């Protein structure tokens, strides 16, 4: 690994982020990344965060049109409430703050505590839970579906709504709507190596793959002999469509887990688009790249978000962050 010692990995990364992005205010000690012009008068602010190791999520999505602040935790470990309260205080213009929380026990508990504390400080807080991963069944017998690729759609689209000046309840309800119409499925071709452990987080022999893997080095639910890009696309898209059943066009995120070359990821996108065509699902927008990663894990995930006029308009709205930029 390209690190000094595992203990300083997150702080080192934040120093490097601060140097590269003068448009962000990076509080390395307290681990809060804030857009420089926050708070933006009259606008709802978006705060997200989660374990580190998924870069560019979330700090790479801080900027006009998307997040107001991000709270990076230790690698694969939810941030602590202190970070979120500090972030909320830094970005709240009085119009309130939306917490975007991926559905993991740790993230939920810490953000809930933070919400209580922030409200004690007079900040109006709403929360949206992202839970899009169909590999986990959403039953009483699990912690519920995990939050993965849909986070990008929620943060982009809710960020655009906030940018337009929508009030907190409206930003919150759009965020919830995006989550409700988004589903993901991921596969791993290799495990990832966390700095603390120094070795692979699970054992995946070459020539096998994990279907339904998470983004924290958690093993998936099923292991198989290696499949082709074509077969994986069939499997992943069908897993998503079994749950989503879109009525209209979708937006598609074909996301790399970290170590999968863009060359392969674009090839995988070709197969994903083929399946969607075969299943009769029109595709309105496609984003291909490494956005919600799992350190150096090889693999990919597919997220589909059912689109309507409003969501497409908000998706297309300008965004200026380190990892996502378009519009003018």
């Amino acid at each position, binding site marked *: 690994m390209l690190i000094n010692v*595992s203990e300083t990995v997150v702080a080192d990364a934040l120093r490097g982020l601060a140097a590269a992005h003068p448009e962000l205010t990076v509080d390395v000690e307290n681990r809060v990344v804030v857009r420089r012009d926050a708070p933006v008068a009259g606008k709802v602010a978006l705060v997200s965060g989660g*374990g580190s190791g998924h870069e560019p999520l979330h700090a790479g999505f801080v900027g006009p049109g998307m997040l107001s602040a991000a709270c990076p*935790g*230790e*690698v*694969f*470990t*939810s*941030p*602590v*409430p*202190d970070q979120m309260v500090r972030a909320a205080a830094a970005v709240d213009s009085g119009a309130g703050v939306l917490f975007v929380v991926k559905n*993991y*026990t*740790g993230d939920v*508990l*810490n953000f809930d*505590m933070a919400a209580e504390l922030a409200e004690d400080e007079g900040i109006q807080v709403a929360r949206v839970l992202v839970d899009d991963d169909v*590999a*986990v069944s959403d039953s*009483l*017998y*699990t*912690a519920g579906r*995990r939050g993965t690729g849909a986070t990008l759609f929620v943060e982009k689209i809710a960020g655009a709504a906030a940018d337009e000046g929508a009030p907190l309840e409206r930003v919150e309800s759009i965020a919830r709507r995006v989550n409700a119409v988004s589903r993901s499925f991921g596969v791993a071709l290799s495990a990832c190596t*966390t700095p*603390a*452990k120094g070795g692979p*987080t*699970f054992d995946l022999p070459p020539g096998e793959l994990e279907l339904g893997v*998470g983004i*924290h*080095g*958690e*093993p998936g*639910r099923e292991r198989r002999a290696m499949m082709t890009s074509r077969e994986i696309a069939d499997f992943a898209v069908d897993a998503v469509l079994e749950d989503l059943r879109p009525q209209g066009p979708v937006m598609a995120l074909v996301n790399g887990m970290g170590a999968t070359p863009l060359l392969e990821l674009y090839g995988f996108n070709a197969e994903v688009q083929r399946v969607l065509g075969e299943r009769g699902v029109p595709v309105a927008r496609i984003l291909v790249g490494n956005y919600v990663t799992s350190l150096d894990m090889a693999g990919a995930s597919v997220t589909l978000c059912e689109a309507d006029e409003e969501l497409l308009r908000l998706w297309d709205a300008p965004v200026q962050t380190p990892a996502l930029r378009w519009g003018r």
Partner: protein
Amino acid sequence: MGRPRTDARAAVGAVSVVLDAEFCRRWMEAMATAVDREADRLTELDSAIGDADHGVNMRRGFAAVKAALEDEPPRTPGAVLILAGRQLISTVGGASGPLYGTLLRRAGKSLGDAAEVTPEQLAEVLGAGVAAVAQLGGAKAGDKTMLDALEPGVAALGDATREGEVFAVAARASLEGAVATVPMLARKGRASYLGQRSVGHQDPGASSSALLFAALAEAAEGTEAAEGTA
């Protein structure tokens, strides 16, 4: 420091221990030492059915607890536990930070500002803490979580009060609870994502909870040893 007293509230082996602020500080310190020593094992367990960070999380959290208690030693058992809980919440993150933080904070709050407590009282307030953990995380016994080691530990502490070796018995009960998670199917936390594949592995959080009771026993033993009366 714990010292033999005639109005002893806790019978440990043949000797009695005072559960004061210093004792609680020693307990937290023993826990810090234990999770530091066992960090790799806890992470390894978490790597099998979680995300390979539980050992690192516990080490970071209890190191902070230890440092905070050394900085400004609180003067009551309740204050020690509250400070410890706050430190865990502020430094651990993940699922275990808020859960262990809540456990200790709730227990500490329940103690009020008493200068000394009995094992019964400790069992009682830890019971309140465990209930808060169950409420916060929505888990119950058998879900393959820390509760499976916390509940038997607390129960033993309450039961065994007048039996002697109360802390050692609780530690044993908690460890048995942790080991009993091996055949369980996880229903909460990350391990639940694995479904059937979670079976056959010991829960990391239950394992660190067993260490918490072992540390409690050690803190008590430490007194005996220090006094040379065991």
